[in-house]
């Protein structure tokens, strides 16, 4: 079962606006945000997409804790993560070589911001409220384990992938946000919409 594409697109547009506003407050540079692609995807697709991100990917994970069941996964390549850290700290590109705890904290907060922006927008389209739990950094091994768990569930389109392009200080960043919802909850949302 797919989520209504029109509603998803509305949510993506509204979510991008929230993301742009949020990062504009946090960063010292001008920010634009656009969702380049939003789609409902199946378990098979999400597993394939996870695999493409590779071993060095930076992954943050947060459980949805209220309103909707599921979780959010934020993935970016290590190179993009280091670039992101430099841009947010208004440092020359290439300054960050090794991520420190504060950098990881910023990445986790980015998951919070992105997830909240899009989840709130999606929840509003389906007239619900949603809260996201504390984010964690996960290893790529854990990410593959999550993908493996998904492969054991009945095939259904119960995930939403938002590929987001952020431009900070004229530098392009490509971020992937996966929102994985419980399929039974999705049916409830469809019935109530």
């Amino acid at each position: 079962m797919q989520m209504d594409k029109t509603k998803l697109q509305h949510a993506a547009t509204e979510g991008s606006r929230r993301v742009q506003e949020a990062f504009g407050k946090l960063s010292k540079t001008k920010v634009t945000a656009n969702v380049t692609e939003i789609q409902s995807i199946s378990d098979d697709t999400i597993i394939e997409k996870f695999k493409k991100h590779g071993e060095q990917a930076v992954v943050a994970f947060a459980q949805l804790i209220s309103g909707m069941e599921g979780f959010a996964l934020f993935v970016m390549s290590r190179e993009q993560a280091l670039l992101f850290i430099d841009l947010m700290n208004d440092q020359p590109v290439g300054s960050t070589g090794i991520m420190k705890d504060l950098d990881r904290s910023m990445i986790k907060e980015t998951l919070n911001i992105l997830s909240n922006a899009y989840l709130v927008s999606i929840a509003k389209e389906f007239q619900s409220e949603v809260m996201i739990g504390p984010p964690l950094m996960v290893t790529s091994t854990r990410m593959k384990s999550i993908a493996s768990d998904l492969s054991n569930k009945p095939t259904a389109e119960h995930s939403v992938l938002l590929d987001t392009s952020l431009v900070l200080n004229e530098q392009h960043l490509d971020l992937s946000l996966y929102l994985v919802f419980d399929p039974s909850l999705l049916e409830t949302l469809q019935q109530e919409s």
Partner: protein
Amino acid sequence: MAKDQLILLTDDSAFMRGVLKNILTEAGHTQFLEASNGKEALEIIKANSPALVLLDVIMPEMGGMDVLKEVGSTTNIVMVTAVGQDTTTEEAKSLGAKGYIVKPFEKAQVLEAVNAVLGE
């Protein structure tokens, strides 16, 4: 003076605690303690009686609402919420929260909420 009063910053994100601290430091505040979860916050509140607690809602081990339930009636607490947590902010008010600020922060919103409690 209001700006010498102790402020406890409670958020599991070191990054967000830093953002808050920078905003408040630029505004002249000088006394801070930090906590990364509700349990730590309660220990600090009981030991140090801060003039104001900025308290994140969602944290591991113990969240902000549980802290509020314990000390909301005796401690000045401003909740730190995320976008879309309208039900939470209503509940927080009923438990004694003096206000709320929404992440990511507008500097003016933070200072307005802090000044409303500390009396600047």
